């Protein structure tokens, strides 16, 4: 595909040979793949393989291969008639790197008050369609795996709130690692108890509890979460009460 210029990749990558079928020796393929994504964005949803091929002046077989690989990885989706392409919602991951918007001062005060009253990490997250946006993370108890929390909705209490809101079949398949049956059990627990929890999912011996913050139309807009040792998660009654009280105060400030 390209001339034999030695690629500037670390030894470890070269040894593995291929990253998901795309060889490290084919840097131009990455270039073309991004070109394909850009082209779909330019043309808009429904653009056909032939149109992309003409726009980029790539060989036809190469274009088809690239398109199929991008569909495989869910960066692109085929339109229902199978002829056209649209950008996949997985691309939103790239857009989410934007700076989190800090909550208003009145909200920060409520959160700080809660932080002073319980010895645990108190975090505020906001929800945007199918994504978690970290909004105010406790500086004294930083999150152990912030990237997993935003990537896998089923691993954190904050994510589980959103999963429940989205409902069965309502979440993108790449946003969870569990099968549908276990997701069902999780969301059922959230619906029944009115709060979400996880214990030992992200860090052994530690867990998390989260309650929902809703706007006037009862739409989930944010989540208030506490992370703490697993033993305390087992007896959540008191914590859940203080969380609910704070959440009630936060609702008008965040919606």
């Amino acid at each position, binding site marked *: 595909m390209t001339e034999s210029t030695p690629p500037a990749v670390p030894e470890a990558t070269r040894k593995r040979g291929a990253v998901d079928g795309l060889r490290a020796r084919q840097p131009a393929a990455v270039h073309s793949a991004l070109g394909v994504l850009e082209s779909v*964005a330019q043309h808009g949803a429904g653009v056909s393989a032939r149109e992309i091929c003409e726009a980029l002046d790539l060989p036809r*077989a190469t274009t088809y291969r690239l398109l199929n690989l991008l569909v*495989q990885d869910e960066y692109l989706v085929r339109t*229902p008639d199978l002829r056209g392409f649209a950008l*996949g919602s997985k*691309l939103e991951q790239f857009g989410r790197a934007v700076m989190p918007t800090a909550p208003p001062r009145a909200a920060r005060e409520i959160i700080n008050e809660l932080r002073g009253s319980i010895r645990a990490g108190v975090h505020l997250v906001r929800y945007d369609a199918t994504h978690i946006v970290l909004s105010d993370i406790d500086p004294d108890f930083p999150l152990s795996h912030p990237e997993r929390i935003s990537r896998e909705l089923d691993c954190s209490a904050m994510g589980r709130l959103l999963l429940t809101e*989205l409902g069965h079949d309502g979440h993108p398949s790449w946003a969870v690692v569990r099968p549908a*049956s276990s997701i069902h059990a999780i969301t059922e627990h959230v619906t029944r108890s009115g709060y979400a929890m996880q214990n030992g999912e992200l860090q052994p011996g530690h867990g998390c509890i989260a309650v929902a913050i809703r706007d006037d139309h009862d739409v989930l807009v944010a989540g208030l979460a506490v992370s703490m040792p697993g033993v305390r998660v087992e007896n959540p009654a008191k914590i859940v009460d203080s969380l609910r009280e704070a959440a009630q105060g936060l609702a008008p400030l965040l919606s």
Partner: protein
Amino acid sequence: MSALERAIAQRHPVHGFSRESPLHGLDRRSIGFVEVLAQSVSAIAPAAAATTMPLLVASIAGSATVFSIATAGLLALLIAFTVNQFTRRMAATGSLYTFVAKGFGTDRAGTTATLATSVGMLIGYSFIAMFALAGGTYYVSIVLARVIPDLIGSPLATGGIMVVLASIVLLVLARGIRLSSRVTLMVETLSVAVLLILIVALLIQIGPHTDWSAVTRQSFAGSTGSFSGIAVGAVLALTAYVGFESSAALGVEVRRPFRNIPRALVWTVLGSLLFYLLAATAQVMGFEVLGADFSQSTSPVNELAEGFGLGSFALVLDIGIAASFLACTIASTTALARVLFSLSRDGILPRRLGSTHPKLHTPLFAIGVSLLAVTVVPLAFVLAGAGIWNTMQLLLVVAAAGYITAYIMVCFAAPAFLNRIGELSIRPLLTALVAGLSLTIAFVTYLAVEVAGERALAVALYVAVMSLGTAVLLLRVRKNPRLALTIGNYDEPTVIDVLGGTTQAKQASD
């Protein structure tokens, strides 16, 4: 700011996607590559096929046995490449039926071809499941006969074993795709391992005694012989590969289907090709060294094991083969139920068959109906005193004919499909045409030979079920012409999969 950045930041609403996949209700994206591979591998039941198929081929292709098996393997590989033109682009549960629907379209001829394919798939999966259930019963009774010698030949005992096995299969299948795929994976790995150990042991024993060029010399001597011998041999050998496409029926349930299913198909064919070549070589050469006639054998691997002083292996081997057959029953019924499920969601079959269990997320009703049919037919044959080995041969021929019909259809549908979506290029076109034409020629030759032979009943059964089934389905479409337009539902991407689709979903719910 590039168009891509703008698209991600602004997320303009994208229309034309629905909120729910037409195939909702199954355990979506719940299994991985290994389980899908297990589905394809179990459906072809390599351990069971490696011990029975070479004998079947040898009785017709004679000295060209190994050559026929290699030819069939290459043919299967071409079919796999062609089927993958679909599996890389759409996830479905109807397997080849849905693919052909997308290729041939909704006009009268297209609908007929599509429905014929669906009947071909139903025949293939159901008769191979019957074959495997009968085979499992046969080998379990051989194992049990070591303890209770009177068991062999008693139709009632055989029927009893069959019912017990069918109940085990039902139990595993009902519990969901994750459990059933793991069970088949474990069972199939064990049985292949047992057979592989035996084959290697045999080859080590045979090694010093023989001139290895005999295999190839024999093959090419045979290949210059009759064309029909090779064609029929290749079709019979193909029966050992059929079912490799069955993981395409798990398109909804597998994670990253466009990557995992194509891989599973190609790996299954390549792996089994190597395995069969090894097994067939060991059997052909083993009998030559022993000075016995391979094609006159009744249970070649056992006889070889005895002949080379590995008799103690026989019991383990029998258990392994029984397990392999059982895994094949599970896998084939899994695929059968999903084709029924698809036909129902497309409106062709009654609604009930397209329902799923709310907790287990399995097409439970379709599984029940499938398993009932799969049990009743061989049970009737056995209770009527037909003899289990004869019954198995009959079932296998019908199944193979069903599969090959569907394979031929899909080979010709693939170029039409690629052309329809504007992605036709020269390599897939040539692959599909070569596979389709050689399959058609081999298949017609095969049917002509079988009609004149002792398995004419199987051909008659195939023709009857095929034409009757297609006619019934066609009649349903003729009565309600709108059905033709809805045939071929697949797991369409929904609003949540599309950038901007999410925004639209949110607004819609407000």
